[in-house]
């Protein structure tokens, strides 16, 4: 049983409190993504799970055992680093089998496990090479292969795709998803990229400034964000936030709420209409982005940030046109003074 529990976990570096009162539960076999902006503490949290950082207070529990005081090598985990951390002076094959070499396993076992990992990740042609002779994507796969050979209870990933280019990133993302499907091991994955979070996670933990903002499935967080931060973090392009006093905003009485200070609506939950009284928002098109699959409009409506509209397919609206926007009322979010979501 490899559930992970974090109870009232705190972390301080000197006088700086980096993680505040973290309480989390990861189920056996779950793929959990820790996501948040730089400096939110997600990497520190991951390293604490790995045993590379100490836990100032609170409990870390794997299954039934409190593991705070266990060394990394005693925790039966594997980790894929952002920089891959491949041993530069060892061949791919030796890199893969290193953990077995340390534990003095027999050559037969080493051979079998290395071959299996190599097969899963397509590394068979590269076994004799040194890391410096590999491309970024290949090194990534070796790093994952090394983790697979360990056959651990828990997989940890620390921003593994950050150093790859865009197309490679998508390819590796799919590899990781397939890996999880195949091995069904508990995986904890750290990233600042919300697309990775949305696509890979069974559940997402959104973190900010050392605290957990919200935990939930990707779609839960997408449709029911608890606060401004989560609402603005997930989803690309970002959710539009309109202050309730904005002159360009016209909402029907039924949509109004006396505590609502900010309204939020995602670019994909609006449609383009005439710039008349029936429109919920009126603005002038400043920039148009035509992707072929979608078209994005950035509207100037008298606020600092433009209002983003996303319509599928190809739309011929031009820069400079004044247009109206209709909100899908069921997808309109309201946030109060403190930034929390108001559930109608």
């Amino acid at each position, binding site marked *: 049983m490899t559930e992970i*529990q974090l*109870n*009232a976990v705190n972390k301080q570096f000197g006088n700086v409190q980096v993680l505040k009162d973290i309480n989390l*539960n990861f189920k056996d076999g779950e793929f959990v993504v820790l996501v948040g902006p730089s400096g939110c503490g997600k990497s520190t949290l991951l390293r604490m799970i790995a045993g590379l950082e*100490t836990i100032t207070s609170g*409990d870390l*529990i794997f299954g039934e055992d*409190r593991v705070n*005081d266990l060394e990394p090598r005693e925790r039966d985990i594997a980790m894929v680093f952002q920089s891959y951390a491949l041993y530069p002076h060892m061949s791919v094959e030796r890199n893969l089998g290193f953990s077995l070499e340390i534990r003095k396993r027999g050559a037969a076992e080493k051979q079998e496990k290395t071959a299996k990992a190599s097969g899963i990740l397509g590394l068979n042609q590269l076994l004799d090479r040194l890391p410096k002779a590999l491309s970024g994507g290949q090194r990534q796969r070796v790093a994952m292969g090394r983790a697979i050979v360990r056959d651990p209870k828990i997989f940890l990933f620390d921003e593994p795709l950050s150093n790859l280019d865009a197309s490679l990133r998508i390819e590796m993302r799919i590899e990781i998803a397939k890996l999880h499907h195949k091995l069904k091991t508990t995986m904890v994955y750290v990233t600042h990229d919300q697309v990775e979070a949305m696509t890979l996670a069974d559940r997402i933990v959104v973190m900010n400034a050392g605290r957990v903002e919200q935990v939930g499935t990707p779609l839960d967080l997408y449709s029911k964000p608890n606060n401004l931060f989560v609402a603005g973090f997930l989803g690309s392009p970002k959710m539009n936030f309109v202050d309730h006093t904005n002159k360009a905003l016209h909402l029907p009485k039924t949509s109004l709420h006396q505590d609502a200070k900010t309204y939020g609506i995602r670019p994909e939950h609006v449609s383009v209409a005439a710039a008349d009284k029936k429109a919920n928002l009126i603005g002038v098109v400043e920039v148009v982005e035509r992707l072929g699959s979608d078209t994005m409009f950035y509207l100037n409506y008298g606020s600092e940030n433009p209002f983003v509209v996303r319509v599928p397919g190809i739309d011929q609206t031009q820069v400079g046109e004044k247009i109206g926007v209709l909100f899908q009322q069921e997808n309109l979010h309201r946030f109060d003074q403190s930034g929390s979501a108001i559930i109608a």
Partner: protein
Amino acid sequence: MTLALSPSPGKSREKSLKKLKWLLEPYLYLSPAIILITLVMLVPLVVGISYAFQSISLLNPFQTGWVGLANFEKLFSDRLFWKALTNTAWWTIGSLVFQFFLGLGLALLLNKPFAGRGLVQGLVFLPWAVPAFLSGLNWAWLFNPIIGPIPHWLAAIGLMDEPTNIMADPNVAMWGPIIANVWFGIPFFAITLLAALQSIPKDLYEAAAIDGASAWQSFAKITIPFLAPTIAITVMLRTIWIANFADLIYIMTGGGPANSTHIISSYIFTTAFRRLDFGYASAIAIALLVLLLAYALLIMQMRKHLVKGI
């Protein structure tokens, strides 16, 4: 849901043992170094310092015993001490300035690849590998007007009226050892500055070139700030080593003529081993140590300020 985990007494003892191990780990790695240095350098240092407060003159064996600050009082009125102090300043600054700038120049030249760079690099760093007394003797020979070439060359290019031994002239004698020291010390700066230069990201220079910076501007605004920390450390270290380095002087001039090349270190040497007055020698050494400590602290403070400003 919190699990009530009350650690058994055995477990908490285990825990504090583990914590102790974790705290001690760095010291484990450091212990051989610390033990060796303490035994061979610190303990003798303390003993050596204590000599300064005693009268240990092997020529006056009946006058031993603690004399408090008597040795230090002697220091203030010792004209040779103050002369040596001035000489030390000349010696250190003279050696340092030339070594540093020539070393920097060499590092800059070696920074860009060229055919045969590997070989040139190996050759040009050789002076550091030559033992001091050997190079001292060698340079003494080179400066000797009867059997060495340099005075003749200097006369030929007009720097001297006729070939004389510069080390016989109290006004310029110091230059002999300084030049030998410069020859010896260039590799130190060249190696460390070259390493620092090579760690500067190339795109900074490219961006500056696009922005229209001239070569001098690139140097002043990119190279120097990046080199500043390395410069601070190497200059501080080398200054201290030079100030303490009396071998070349001792071999080339013996401190003369007329004590014009005696620096504090060589003065300590002659006091200790010619006049056999260990107590006084220690007092002089302490004076030097205090000065160098002050210097080091000054540099560290300056460095902090400079780094803040960047």
